[in-house]
């Protein structure tokens, strides 16, 4: 099927009443959780996952995807108006976005973010339509050795990008791998780390861990500053960028989109790396670099374009290789598998309506988001001021229902509570949970591919270096690790990540 026919099929799938409605619901919910600090797309998607089991598979995926990229839009609203990142990926937006708001240019900053995001979203979806079929064709050249190397790259990327020390990130990744090993060994059927309880024989459900760490843990952490939470929301004036604004933000949006599109495909990088890199690049190349940190519109447009572009293109490895680059993508795989669809190179030929429907719905969703976020920004600003003593108990109830309904298991609810406390502890000691969650998902996959690659090669580990694809991937991973040892890069990383805190 060529792209044109594919897009036609996608349009007919995405514009059915149900799919259109759920796409809207998804982006609406995504914007809401993006706006609210302390509630992110991972926790939201985990909570809603069991409720999508009854929907058709295309509808479910369209809605869940909408939540994810919708939160990228919503996150910037809070960042600009309140100097609080609604989402991790909008931390850099606070730097110049909130400065602009202080200067009375909040509306123009919001417009820059939304327009940048929309443009990037459009390019991102187009890129999926072109690149995903190509990669699916290439996917057959990926054997066990290549998959293993790709996973190693993903894990190392997520460690290098985590805030805090590399050692902490390594510890978190190793802990995550251990959590992933709990359960029954895939080849021999032996029970591992189950402490004799049958509840652990199936392993830990990663939705349980993610909901605990990201949902409950965030709620606990936010309770601390509930009293001191300032309700200072900047006033929104004109939403129309000036001619000067347009001129200044056009090139940064293009560059941000390019960076986001490429980095989104890289496993383990996620949307955070994209927004950081785009900001760093603009700061270097911009003629107004002195204004950065003092309200430069480039510093809003570029990272917002980048994070949204990455939010679209990170679907590519998930759909075509079945390889989740981020925790959110692992949730999407879960949603597909539950419905009997195995992501992988066959998905385009076996589920064309699902694939193309998703691509088109993403573009439609981005269009809806543009309208949701600009004219309605006042509504979202009000949402920020919803008192947490109403919101948090509701979140707690919803996560408990959500987790319980996955397996009808009370044990899972207790596990989630335990991981909630653990999540709070991680927050207190400054250990970022992203590498833990990713390692928990990718660890068992890495083990499976490592064992298979070595079985096929009769124990000869050189297969990882004789395949050019695998060798190249491992070299990139090694360079990433080395770069952190180099004092110059370390300084850049620390500066970049400090700005987050």
């Amino acid at each position, binding site marked *: 099927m060529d792209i044109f026919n594919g897009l036609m099929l996608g349009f007919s799938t995405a514009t059915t009443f149900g799919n259109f409605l759920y796409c809207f619901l998804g982006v609406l919910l995504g914007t809401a959780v993006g706006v609210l600090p302390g509630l992110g797309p991972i926790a939201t998607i985990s909570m809603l996952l069991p409720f999508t089991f009854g929907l058709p598979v295309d509808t479910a995926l369209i809605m869940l995807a909408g939540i994810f990229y919708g939160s990228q839009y919503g996150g910037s609203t809070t960042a600009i108006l309140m100097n609080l990142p609604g989402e991790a990926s909008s931390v850099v937006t606070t730097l110049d976005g909130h400065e602009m708001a202080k200067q009375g240019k909040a509306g123009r900053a919001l417009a820059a973010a939304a327009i940048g995001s929309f443009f990037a979203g459009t390019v991102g979806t187009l890129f999926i339509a072109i690149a995903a079929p190509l990669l699916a064709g290439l996917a057959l050249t990926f054997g066990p050795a290549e998959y293993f190397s790709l996973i190693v790259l993903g894990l190392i990327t997520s460690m290098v990008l985590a805030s805090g020390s590399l050692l902490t990130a390594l510890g978190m990744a190793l802990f995550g791998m251990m959590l992933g090993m709990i359960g029954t060994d895939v080849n021999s059927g032996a029970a591992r780390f189950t402490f004799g309880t049958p509840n652990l024989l199936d392993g830990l459900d990663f939705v349980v861990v993610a909901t605990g760490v990201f949902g409950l843990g965030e709620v606990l952490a936010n309770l601390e500053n509930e009293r001191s939470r300032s309700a200072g929301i900047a006033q929104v004036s004109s939403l129309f960028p000036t001619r000067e604004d347009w001129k200044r933000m056009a090139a940064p949006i293009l560059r941000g989109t390019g960076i986001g599109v490429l980095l989104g495909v890289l496993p383990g990088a996620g949307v955070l790396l994209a927004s950081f890199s785009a900001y760093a690049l603009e700061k270097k190349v911009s003629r107004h670099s002195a204004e950065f940190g003092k309200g430069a519109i480039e510093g809003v447009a570029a990272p917002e374009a980048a994070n949204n572009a990455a939010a679209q293109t990170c679907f590519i490895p998930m759909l075509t290789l079945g390889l989740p680059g981020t925790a959110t993508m692992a949730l999407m795989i879960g949603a597909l598998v539950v419905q*009997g*669809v195995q992501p992988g190179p*066959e998905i385009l030929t076996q589920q064309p309506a699902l694939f193309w429907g998703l691509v088109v719905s993403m573009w439609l969703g981005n269009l809806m988001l543009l309208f949701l976020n600009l004219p309605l920004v006042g509504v979202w600003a009000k949402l920020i001021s919803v008192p947490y003593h109403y919101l948090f108990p509701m979140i707690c109830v919803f996560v408990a229902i959500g987790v319980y309904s996955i397996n009808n298991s009370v044990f899972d609810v207790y596990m989630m509570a335990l991981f909630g406390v653990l999540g709070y502890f991680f927050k207190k000691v400054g250990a970022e949970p992203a590498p833990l969650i990713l390692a928990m998902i990718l660890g068992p996959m890495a083990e499976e591919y490592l064992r298979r690659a070595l*079985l*096929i090669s009769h124990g000869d580990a050189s297969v990882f270096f004789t395949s050019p694809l695998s060798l190249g991937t491992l070299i990139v991973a090694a360079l990433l690790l080395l770069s952190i040892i180099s004092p110059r890069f370390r300084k850049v990383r620390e500066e970049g990540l400090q700005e987050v805190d």
Partner: protein
Amino acid sequence: MKRREFMVLGGTAALLASSGTAWSAGKWPSKPGVVISAYPPGGTSDIITRLVADVLTAKFGQQFVVENHAGAAGALAGGKLARAAADGYTIMVSGSAPIAANKVVQKNLAYDPQVDFTPITIVAESPALLTASASAPAKSLQELIAYAKANPGKVNIGNPGAGTKGHIAAAIIGQLAGVEINHIPYKGSPPLLTDLLGGHIHFALDAPSNYLPHVRDSKIRGLAVTSLKRTSELPDVPTVAEQGFKDYDQTLWFGAVGPKGMPAEIVNAIQGAIKEWTDMPATKEKLTSLGLTAVANTPDQMRVSIQKEIESIRPLVDAGLVQPT
């Protein structure tokens, strides 16, 4: 307003929570049920599981949902079933590994399929199909054996899990031909097929459904079927017996089982529904296109099949020819 909303929410939560515990009273089925699939979506075992779930949903007017618990050659799903309540709301449909072979193949199996399961019916059966990638060093079974003799320890044959029929059928060929074969377990058929198409592994022995279209497209080569006679779906592919292994006959089956102590009337109701469905001409046609033949035997007949399967594998395990890797 807020308070009332919250109370409604709490009520919903309580309702949802109570629906998880079994209502044993009343007529079965009074609530949705679960059909466990022991392999990932898309493989033969999973296709049959989904067909059965649809049949039960249509017949009994309650939703029967498929849950995939792939891993450890079905032992993960088997363990899940063994721990489930025997109220007729959880059953499993699977190839023979978690229902029979795992008992002798996996030393650490957390359940005993002959004790912890209630047989319902064998849904369908089929021969296994030996396939080779386009770049494989052999174009027939004889060439494969010759290659294995010339390159001891170099032949890898993929299977959808340790103890699956694909694994066992390959082990028997190795035993009869006196060659060493490395068995590479996969997590079900789809990933094995992907690796075979990509040439990362050169041979696979598995249920035929997923491979049929690719053999017809000549993207992979069918080397042999394990049944005594050739199959109608691949008339050009010779049997193993034809290629020098007289009387070689291996059939794989897919069956439905429930947890230990499932009420006989529910077992019979499910068996009856499946039997009724397999008797329909449309079903037969559908199964044939997948390379399968309908069986729908009685629970007692299935019990005998399980026993026979286990006894036929035990000597292979004792001889060290079939073991998890």
